[in-house]
């Protein structure tokens, strides 16, 4: 078997293959690391592992159509969730807000379907309304439809994940200005939703249950959060969000566009600048949390899929 012949054959169909494998230098490093001890029989498995790792994080043939269909799957996850809301569970302010969010997500599903169709792309099938999504996440949120606070927690996780997903995907569609701008125009709406859901949870946790705008944020923010993500909202990993992965944690950079990394929400390095009261002297007296709050972070498709799959009955809907 000629390893380099394999690579050049793959290059015919995937010009980006060398980028996916990071660099030719690291291919050699991987091969050397596998050890001169490997027998000829073992080598194909090791080679296969390198390619599996390279392609595992990206939908095969990722392009605008795949990104839009992935976004559509996330919108189905959300829109079905909101359409299933038991209205009697919520106080008046929350009921009204959820009505607005439900309309938005239903609209997003239709918009994305129409956009994919208009682009001549292949649409995913409409998922069944039962048997596809499990909003208890295999029993991690048993009271999701019986407790107001739990429902809003899951909703916040969906919206914050959606923001991270659209943000991470924007560079993937920047070659099409119409799709890019549409993606940005959905992304900011998800952020408005996330802000509102956080305010609703804040209010529920505040003495007297005031209106959402008057809720008081309480550190470490996972139960009475700010409207923006403060660090990872918690002193430790945010296990209340999803068991398999941390909604506010870092992603995987393997296939990220050059210069882009998927950091945890606690990140304070933007471009080449480490943000602090020292590097930004006007901010010398600012609380440390402000530097991570001022910027949201994106996520790669694979990590978003892992988070979303915790709500997939099969565990693979988002693959």
């Amino acid at each position, binding site marked *: 078997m000629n390893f380099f012949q394999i690579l050049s054959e793959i290059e015919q169909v995937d010009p980006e293959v060398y980028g996916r494998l990071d660099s030719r230098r690291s291919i050699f490093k991987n091969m050397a690391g596998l050890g001169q001890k490997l027998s000829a029989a073992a080598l194909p498995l090791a080679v296969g592992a390198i390619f599996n790792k390279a392609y595992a994080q990206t939908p095969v043939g990722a392009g605008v159509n795949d990104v839009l269909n992935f976004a559509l799957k996330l919108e189905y996850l959300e829109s079905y969730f909101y359409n299933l809301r038991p209205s009697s569970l919520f106080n008046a302010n929350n009921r009204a807000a959820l009505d607005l969010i439900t309309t938005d997500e239903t609209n997003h599903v239709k918009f994305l379907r129409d956009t994919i169709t208009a682009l001549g792309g292949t649409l995913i099938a409409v998922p069944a309304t039962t048997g596809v999504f499990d909003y208890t996440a295999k029993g991690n949120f048993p009271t999701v439809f019986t407790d107001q606070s739990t429902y809003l927690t899951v909703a916040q996780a969906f919206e914050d994940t959606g923001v991270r997903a659209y943000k991470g995907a924007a560079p993937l569609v920047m070659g099409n200005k119409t799709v890019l701008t549409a993606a940005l*125009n959905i992304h900011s709406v998800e952020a408005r939703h996330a802000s509102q859901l956080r305010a609703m949870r804040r209010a529920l946790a505040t003495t007297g249950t005031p209106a959402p705008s008057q809720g008081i944020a309480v550190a470490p923010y996972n139960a009475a959060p700010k409207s923006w993500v403060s660090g990872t909202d918690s002193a430790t990993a945010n296990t209340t969000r999803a068991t398999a992965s941390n909604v506010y944690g870092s992603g995987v950079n393997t296939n990220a566009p050059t210069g882009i990394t998927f950091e945890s929400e606690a990140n304070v390095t933007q471009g080449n600048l480490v943000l602090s009261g020292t590097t930004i002297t006007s*901010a010398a007296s600012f609380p440390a949390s402000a530097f991570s709050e001022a910027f949201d972070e994106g996520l790669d498709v694979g990590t978003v899929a892992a988070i979303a799959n915790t709500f997939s009955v099969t565990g693979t809907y988002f693959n």
Partner: protein
Amino acid sequence: MSNTLLNGSKPLETELDRPLYTPIKRRSFFMYAGATAGATALVLAGCSKSDSTPGTVNVGSGDPGVLNYAYALEQLEAAFYTQVRTGTYYTGSTITAAEKSILDDLYYHEVIHRDFFKAAIIGAGATPIQALTPDFSSIDFNSRTSVLGAAKAFEDLGVAAYNGAGQYIASAQYLYIAGKIVSVEARHAAIIRDLVAEGTFVGNDVLTLTSANNSAVTTNNSPANSSLERAMSPREVVNVANTYLAAGSKLDVTSLM
């Protein structure tokens, strides 16, 4: 700039010169040169560093132009929230703990955004635009209604601006950074809108609910009932932003689009 103008002698009026300047007496020239707001436009041939309308700030072109455009808007927001802290709505006794905490965070975030962009522009080897002079004369910083109404306007405008600017960015890295900021501005906008009126975190004024968007740049537009943000082109944004900028600080984005 022609020295004959400074000397006060009658300037040459050739066929080529005539449309480019208005001959002016020396004393009048210095009076106009010293004036700030309200000065009539004084056309000085060849004085601008770039081919922009005199008295305006041209953000430039390409990615550095977009960064300067964002820097300008963040300057405006940072200046606003800085001034909020001096008014009696913020310093007085009627503001709630929640509102004060929100306005504090908005101030911190926008100052950080502003100074980040200045550093990023320098890091990109480009020149940041000047420090802009805002015009907040229409805002009463002692009034909750006025302050929150202005905050809502600035935050919604910022979201629309970033969303409409993405298409002009060539570098994926800069696009990603802009994305990191715009979602924070949208979070700001949502809570400010709730402070103005509960449950208005979204509305037809900012999303395409009951009507389509109608930006002059069609990539910004989506149909009614799609619930997409109403993106605005740089020109459309500065038409609004310039009402909050003093003469001499008004933005020119004609090189961006």
